């Protein structure tokens, strides 16, 4: 019974994930694309929960679906109708090349993973109850991966400074406008 429920949750989350991913790329209105991406991130969080990555799922909903997507929606609202991006009639060989490149990327990923780990991927090892909990993740962040933790803070500081610099009116910009 529990097995069946897990499968049902997985199937719903997987199809929501794939469908909303395709919707993000294909909508012409960026507002709908951003809303579809929120759905995509939410269904990915469900998949993370099924992989017993509780803390990452919570961070995904808080950081991505919460903070980042709100910023996206603000900018799209700020741009107004300038943000509309209908499918432009570019040269068709460009579109064909893009489809071929994306398809070959997918085939490449599938082949590499299949060659490398096909037989051993079906059975996941038993894990302790604390796997993926904030306690375990925080302990790793502050011991083994302290450097990554500190570098993340520097990256975020640089991004904040960059955002302020880009957002403030640069000198000479008023004449150009």
């Amino acid at each position, binding site marked *: 019974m529990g097995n069946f429920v897990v499968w049902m949750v997985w199937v719903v989350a997987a199809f929501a994930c794939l469908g909303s991913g395709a919707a993000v790329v294909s909508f012409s209105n960026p507002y709908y694309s951003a809303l579809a991406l929120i759905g995509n991130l939410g269904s990915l969080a469900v998949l993370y929960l099924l992989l017993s990555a509780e803390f990452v799922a919570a961070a995904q909903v808080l950081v991505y679906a919460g903070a980042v997507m709100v910023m*996206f929606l603000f900018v799209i609202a700020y741009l107004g109708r300038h943000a509309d991006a209908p499918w432009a009639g570019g040269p068709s060989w460009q579109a064909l090349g893009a489809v071929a490149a994306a398809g070959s990327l997918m085939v490449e990923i599938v082949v590499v993973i299949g060659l490398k780990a096909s037989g051993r991927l079906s059975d996941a090892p038993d894990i302790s109850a604390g796997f993926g909990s904030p306690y375990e993740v925080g302990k790793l962040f502050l011991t083994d991966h302290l450097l990554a933790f500190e570098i993340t803070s520097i990256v975020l500081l640089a991004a904040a400074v960059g955002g302020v610099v880009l957002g403030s009116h640069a000198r000479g910009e008023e004449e150009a406008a």
Partner: protein
Amino acid sequence: MGPALTWYLAISAFLFAIGALGVMLRRSPLIVLLSLEIMLNGANLALITFSRHHGELDGQIFALAVMAVAAAEVVVGLGLIVAVHRRRLDLDVDKLSTLRG
């Protein structure tokens, strides 16, 4: 026991490919950024799947670092888009070609 880990990897491959398609096909920088997020999330799903496969938490740590970098990238990208819009330029990645060599 739920679905095998291979299926999660199939989803992550599909997400990465469809994100790459959006990055290459669409010409609005906003949708290019949104597609880039899909690519990053496909990579994150693969990282977390392999973390579960090995029973080690390091993949989840990497996924969290990817999330932080993605947030930084969105700040800078959206700042650039707003700056481009303020200069009354078209929001079209094909027309922003001043730096082309």
